[in-house]
């Protein structure tokens, strides 16, 4: 009695290890490796005898799916649910990351007070702001003026269109040369704010998410009335902001002549190291210098990571449910086909084609489910726009990005679920005692 039990325990552990190994390969493998594996499998089914046997058994299995439509759809829908949720949350993280990453380049640099990390924490006095712009690595325009923008970030409260609740919006005071610093910024409605006036222009994203920022409307900042005179599109995180003249913002918020940061255009991406070193060695300054790409990438890291962890946790719990659903379906499928499988074994088919056929069938169903879930997510969520809290504790508007890598991850999960859900029933099918199977009604 003890012997067979030991053996079945051993084989269970063996198949668990195989499953874990296969999933690790699936998760880690790049697309070309999987493509190669699929091609190899196709070659195997066409060239070798066992492979041809496997394919013909699979064909029979697939042909009987319409008879078990309800049960098979459990595999498909279960996996579609997992993949849809996973893809949606990963697309959210990817969209947030991309929006912030686009906001920076390698040939512009942001200078803040040392240790500040974010603009809202930073204060630069007027003299420092001037010195920072005068460095030789800063690009100058035709008039010989450095392309630098002393900026000040303050917070305003505006009602969100979605729920009517007040949320924090970033108001960025920019210098007169902000336009040549960020040539990608286009005015899409109205006009630019006038220097020295209490006028604002609103970013495309902020305009969509918040009410009370239409052209010509007025809003109160720190007790003073400001007018919205235009709207702009920068294609990045600045779209969540309102822009105005730095000096007027500073006056309104009683910041004197200080600013929060200075952003400069460098003569080239290779000039950054010299620029940073130059500022660091200047005894008059205590500042930190980053390329704007590095600055915005750092800001997105923590939240994007949090969303990914959330997505993977939720999807993992859902995947457990889907695996058991698939197991149930495939065990039932094997049970209904037990007589057929026993016949095949009796006329000389080996165990391998039987295992491969059940596994292939499950994986194909899983792939269908994965594709369905990914497509669903893509249709609903691609470019879906939401806003969240950025590192200045103000709203950052961004769009979901259902990108190919995200879809690919979803499909890999689907295949992994199909693999586990199919492996054990496949092994059961191979071990069915032939005589008992033939006698079954």
């Amino acid at each position: 009695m003890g012997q067979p039990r030991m053996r079945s325990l051993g084989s269970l552990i063996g198949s668990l290890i195989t499953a874990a190994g296969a999933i690790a390969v699936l998760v880690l493998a790049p697309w070309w490796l999987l493509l190669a594996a699929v091609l190899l499998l196709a070659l195997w089914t066409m060239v070798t005898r066992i492979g041809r046997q496997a394919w013909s058994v699979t064909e029979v299995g697939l042909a009987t799916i319409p008879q078990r439509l309800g049960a098979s759809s459990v595999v498909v829908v279960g996996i579609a649910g997992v993949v849809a949720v996973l893809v949606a949350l990963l697309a959210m993280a990817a969209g947030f990351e991309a929006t912030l990453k686009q906001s920076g380049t390698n040939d512009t640099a942001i200078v803040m007070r040392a240790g500040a990390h974010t603009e809202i924490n930073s204060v630069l006095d007027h003299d420092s702001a001037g010195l920072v712009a005068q460095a030789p690595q800063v690009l100058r325009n035709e008039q010989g003026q450095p392309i630098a923008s002393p900026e000040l970030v303050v917070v305003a409260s505006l009602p969100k269109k979605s729920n009517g609740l007040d949320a924090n919006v970033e108001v960025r005071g920019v210098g007169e040369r902000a336009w040549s610093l960020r040539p990608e910024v286009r005015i899409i409605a109205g006009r630019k704010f006038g220097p020295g006036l209490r006028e604002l222009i609103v970013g495309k994203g902020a305009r969509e998410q918040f009410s009370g920022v239409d052209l010509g409307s007025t809003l109160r900042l720190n007790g003073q009335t400001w007018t919205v005179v235009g709207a702009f599109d920068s294609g990045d995180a600045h779209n969540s902001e309102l822009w105005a003249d730095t000096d007027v913002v500073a006056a309104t918020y009683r910041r004197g002549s200080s600013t929060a940061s200075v952003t400069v255009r460098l003569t080239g991406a290779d000039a950054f190291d010299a620029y940073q070193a130059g500022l660091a060695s200047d005894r008059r300054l205590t500042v930190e210098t980053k390329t704007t790409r590095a600055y915005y990438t750092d800001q997105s890291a923590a939240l994007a990571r949090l969303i990914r962890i959330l997505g993977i946790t939720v999807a993992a719990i859902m995947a457990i449910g889907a695996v058991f659903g698939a197991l149930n379906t495939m065990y039932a499928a094997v049970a209904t086909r037990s007589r057929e499988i026993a016949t095949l074994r009796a006329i000389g088919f080996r165990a391998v084609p039987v295992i491969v056929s059940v596994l292939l069938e499950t994986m194909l169903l899983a792939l269908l489910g994965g594709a369905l879930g990914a497509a669903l997510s893509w249709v609903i969520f691609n470019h879906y726009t939401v806003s969240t809290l950025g590192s200045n504790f103000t709203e950052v508007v961004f769009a979901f990005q259902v990108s190919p890598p995200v879809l690919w991850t979803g499909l890999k999960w689907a295949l992994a679920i199909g693999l586990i859900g199919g492996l054990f029933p496949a092994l059961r099918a191979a071990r069915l005692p032939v005589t008992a199977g033939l006698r079954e009604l």
Partner: protein
Amino acid sequence: MKYLQLIWTAMFRSKTRTIFTLLSVLAAFLLFGLLDSVRSAFANAATSVAGVDRLMTVSKISFTLSLPKSLLPRIEALPGVAKVTYANWFGGIYQDPKNFFPNEAVADNFFDLYPEWRLSQAERTAFGNTRTGAVVGESLAKKFHWKLGDKIPLQATIYPQKNGGNNWTFDLVGIYRAADPKRKSEENLLFFNWDYFDEARAFGNGNVGWYVLKVTDRKLAQQVAQALDALSTNSDHETKTQTEQAFNAAFVGQYGDIGLIVGAIMGAVFFTLILLTGNTMAQAVRERIPELAVLKTIGFSNHSVLGLVLAESVLLILLGGAIGLVLAGVVVDAVRAAVGTAVPMTRVGAAIWLRGVGLMILIGLIVGALPARRGMRLRIVDALAGR
């Protein structure tokens, strides 16, 4: 009730299948428990301030903006206010940003308002008398191997000193303990003297980050909050007074619409679950058609067969769901113990169980409906003949 044995046996007729189904139901309700705990934490926090005796006053626009200290005497003078204290976020870094822990400059009566944090009288006096004194939680002190008398250097992120330096050094004069051992996660803060902070910082002098006040009577909380916010209406520093939970929830709530996200995920989960268990039940009934026919032959009415099948499917979901919710409760308690109020989660209590069990019964009835109808309608002769 007398049929319980019968239902139970029928349910475990195919052990593997039932156990797999139970495990999927378990996974679904584990997820439900976790997500509903987060969702209710937000929903509860939004409720009124009535019935709470400690309130928090921050700038109405953003908690990153500070308030003038000149408000203090006016708040103290409000009827219904027992004690007021104030604090500033400092955001200093100890050695490396990875070592993050909250650190705040607080007024000398700060610990009077937080009796749940135990600090001995001697240490409290030392904190008051030492200009550069600091108090930390026991867990934090253990983590960095600090003991009384140690010097703790912090790198400022917001407030440089008047001489332009970013280095602030504090003398550890006290270690506080959470009165409730379950709230060990609250022992991860560092507090230092606001007077020293205000004197040494380069800018922002005379402003405080937020006020904390205790009301004389819980019933007055709503009234005090309104009166306090009225003090600064139409000024350039309007305030918002709320409970600490409401503050935390509003903060995290700005990250996104929690209810919507949770609702969408749960929709996907339960849709899948209904399909999955529905299939299991259909299978189970299909296999048992001859048995159900026998039951009818020996005198069970159509309705009792319907009831038997429905009861089986409800029982199946209830069993899996209950284990899932128990598990969710364990996980939520573990998370709360580990990270405290940073992740708003309510305990998996009566309200969540009530919603959960309601959902279980509903889903059980939905998935059982079709198979049960089939069982009810079957004709004995056909079923016994295997037609």
